[in-house]
């Protein structure tokens, strides 16, 4: 695999070097923090207990603190630099990883999901700003879909320049595809991100506890949520971690939200280009596994 950063061998060597530098930066950061805070704690204890010792050795405490701060700064700079370079190398490998994991890639980056999807009744929090990243459109294991990582932010305060400050209300991955159910009523959703006031209840207490259902009618809900299917949903790892939201819209759109999930991930312990590609591809296949495990009525390519 040759990219703009050189041949595979050159990149592997570069990654290994970055790995070593990253570990060094991390160690410097850690030791620096230990020196600064350890000195501060020790100083405080001596102030409380033994003033005579402090008089003899007090000056020595002023050595580790600046050294510690220096190590923190150097460690942070090294970690940041290696992280940036590693990220650039990873960007070059993303198309390769996507080609491996997906049946077809129509678009990566350069677009975003329609923001109205985030305002659908999925139990997502109200937000003032929605930022998306890693937009991907294509076919994954026979399913034509679009997906994007997103972060919903709420405005908290305004600073002195009247610029808004935001806090993160929610982050995750939204997958948009098509379902095959013919809905007789308006769409419905079952989600773990909120409890709908007056939400529908099923016969399964475990399901009612794990999920909240939003539906205008109810017939379509019971057509999909059979007792066996509810039992299956409740047993999923995503359901146990309360990270799942699903909405079936009347126009045939299916929205799946997985909290805290990302499309592109990295592992600093990987020091080869091929390992990086495999790791990313495996993660995307993991998203496909999750979609399959939901056993939703999803439209697939013929």
């Amino acid at each position, binding site marked *: 695999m040759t990219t703009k950063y050189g041949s595979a061998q050159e990149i592997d060597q570069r990654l290994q070097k970055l790995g070593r530098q990253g570990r060094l930066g991390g160690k410097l950061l850690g030791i620096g923090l230990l020196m600064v805070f350890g000195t501060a704690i020790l100083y405080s204890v001596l102030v409380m207990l033994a003033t005579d010792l402090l008089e003899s050795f007090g000056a020595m405490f002023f050595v580790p603190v600046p050294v510690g701060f220096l190590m923190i700064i150097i460690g942070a700079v090294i970690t940041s630099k290696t992280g940036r370079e590693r990220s650039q190398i990873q960007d070059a490998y993303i198309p390769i990883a996507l080609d491996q994991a997906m049946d077809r890639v129509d678009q990566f980056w350069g677009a975003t999901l329609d923001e109205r999807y985030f305002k659908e009744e999925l139990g997502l929090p109200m937000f003032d700003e929605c930022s998306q990243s890693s937009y991907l459109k294509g076919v994954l294991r026979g399913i034509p879909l679009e997906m994007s990582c997103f972060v919903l932010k709420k405005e908290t305060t305004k600073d002195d320049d009247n610029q808004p400050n935001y806090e993160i209300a929610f982050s995750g991955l939204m997958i948009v595809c098509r379902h095959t159910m013919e809905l007789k009523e308006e769409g419905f959703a079952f989600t773990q991100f909120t409890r709908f006031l007056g939400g*529908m209840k099923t*016969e399964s207490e475990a399901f009612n506890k794990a999920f909240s259902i939003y539906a205008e009618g*109810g*017939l*379509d809900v*019971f057509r999909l949520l*059979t007792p066996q299917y509810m039992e299956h949903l409740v047993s999923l790892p995503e359901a146990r971690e309360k990270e799942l939201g699903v909405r079936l819209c009347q126009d045939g759109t299916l929205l799946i939200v997985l909290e805290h999930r990302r499309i592109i991930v990295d592992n600093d312990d990987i020091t080869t280009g091929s390992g990086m590609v495999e790791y990313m591809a495996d993660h995307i296949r993991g998203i496909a596994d999750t979609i399959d495990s939901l056993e939703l009525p999803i439209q697939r390519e013929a």
Partner: protein
Amino acid sequence: MFFFTFDLFTLLIGGAIVLAVLWVISTINGFKRREIKIEEALSGIEVALTKRYDMLTKLLDTAKGFMEHESDLFSRVIALRHGMSVGEMGKADREMSELTGRLFAVAENYPELRSSEVFLELQRGIRDAEEHLQAARRLYNANVSSYNIAIAMFPAKLLAKGHSPKEFYDADDEKRGDVKMQF
């Protein structure tokens, strides 16, 4: 001082009365809303039963041409009319289930019928209708459960005079009985 205390007391009493009135209105409306949902769900069962009935009628008509000797299958009369009670619907549901089961069992002896496109299409249609009916039953029972709980819980039950618990829809699958295969 006395007048200040009197005003505060009046305000508190007034506030409590307003809250109580709002609670009464909300509770009574809640009962009514649930009753309407039950009626809607019952109507949904009626629609599903009618759909199944229509499919079964078409299936019987198709099968008649092949199974002329199975007269007892075609002589069954199942009553289905608009505005049936829950019990009557349950009875019609059970009768249709029994007839469908017997028809499919007897159809096993007629390979020409079983492989005909029309029969297969109608068989799929009946399965779809049964799924629809199953969902409609569960929706109705969920709404009935919600209503029955609402009128039984304190203090709402103080306002529930004149509201009696609704009957659940009982398809009672056990009473379908075994389908005897005749060879």
